[in-house]
């Protein structure tokens, strides 16, 4: 069965009130419990804000100069805030689960198939 990454994007910033925060957590716990029980979740993490990100680039090819930049690679309004790895039969099933991730209504969820190296030639 193919593996899908559900990438959760949302607007950053703005301090959430404790009530709001616990509401978000409750929604995520609900999703995790449901998807976990169905056996589709193979992994996933929540990420700290992009202000904590460091971008690494090796200039001039392998072995070249390492350049660090403070911040994310792409500065966009909506930032990657976390992801799940979902093992599903097909895209319809993956999209069905993605629609139940709280990030889908608090932001957006991008669903992408992971490369299956066992099928690659």
């Amino acid at each position, binding site marked *: 069965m*193919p593996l899908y990454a559900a990438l959760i994007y949302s607007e950053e910033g703005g301090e959430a009130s404790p009530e709001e925060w616990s509401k978000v957590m409750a929604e995520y716990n609900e999703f995790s419990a449901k998807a976990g029980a169905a056996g589709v979740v193979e992994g996933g993490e929540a990420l700290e804000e992009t202000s904590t990100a460091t971008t690494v680039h090796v200039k001039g090819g392998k072995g070249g100069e390492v350049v660090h930049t403070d911040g994310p690679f792409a500065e966009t309004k909506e930032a990657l805030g976390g992801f799940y790895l979902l093992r599903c*039969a*097909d*895209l*319809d099933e993956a*999209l069905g689960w993605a629609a139940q991730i709280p990030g889908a209504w608090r932001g957006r969820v991008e*669903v*992408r*198939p992971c490369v299956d190296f066992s099928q690659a*030639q």
Partner: protein
Amino acid sequence: MTIGETIRIEGGRVLATLIRFTGDISLAEDALQEATIVALERWTTDGVPANPVAWLTAVARNKALDRIRREARRREKEIEADYGRGFEIEEDDSLRLIFTCAHPALSMEARVGLTLRLIGGLKTSEIAGLFLLPEPTIGQRISRAKKKIALARIPYRVPSPHELPDRLAGVLAVIYLIFTTGHHAFEGALDSRFDLSAEAIRLGRLLVGLMPDEPEAQGLLALMLATNARHRARLDERGDIVLLSDQDRSLWDLKAIREASLLIERALRRRRAGPYQIQGAIACLHGQARSDAETDWRQISDLYRFLESFNDGPVIRVNRAVAESKVFGPAAGLELLEGITGVDGWHLYWSTRADFLRQLGRESEAAAAYRSALAINMNDADRRFLERRLASLSLA
């Protein structure tokens, strides 16, 4: 029917089964292509077989297996295990293909391209010609869509009953978009892409045959037939627009209007009304009127009101305003146009508004509205019509 036509028309069904069998759209297309070459040779000398679909499918299946073996992507044993089991043409294969081509995970452009290519059996060059786009653009769109279907595993199945209403609406939208693109060209000559309408009607017929219990599929086919029935009367010999009220009704295709009316009657009896059935019913009412004066505008405006309960977009509001103006006068029509938003870039909104103002004798406001309409991109026939209307105002 020529052998070539038989193959084009039956090819979609063969392809649908081959895709299920191989799980690979490109491989299935190549296998069908090879089988077509054999068929053209064989059928020219021996005649078309009694069951061309079964014949083509069997030959194409063997071509596909040959290719899988030749490319040695799998060992012979695995090929046996994967493809050795019973291989039959399933009734649902064509529907599976239709729902995959119209899958919501694909862009509308990709859905239209895939549908015309895989179900309509058109070549990439033909699709490019119909849309007046370069062949590589269409080719890229289709190959990108096929790649996404394969890698993201867009499933090859008929949606389950609870998903069906939404997904069927998606399929109908693709077919209707193909129809309207052909029927009312966005720019250039109004009739420049008329073949697309014929193609859409063919797809509509196919869908009605495959889903005889879906009244919206019947509604869409009726809408397309009844609209298309008037097409010979809508332009004069100079290619200028003739308004519905001024059309020579003897040029209308009464057989198509009758077929559409029967479809609508049958669909409405199921008591599951929907937007395509209502629009089809409106088109039939226009088609059945023997003169403009005999048009049942009251029922038409009621139907537009009903349609607004499904979709309260500006297009329906403008159409309803036209119908109500015929019953209650231009002031009532104009009032319905007040407060519509998001229509500034739509020339038919401005021309409708201009027409109401003209009828009310508010000529300077009418002229301003015609000028707003003419500032927008449109096909040549619409433009000439609006220019004539503007020139006919006494102050212009």
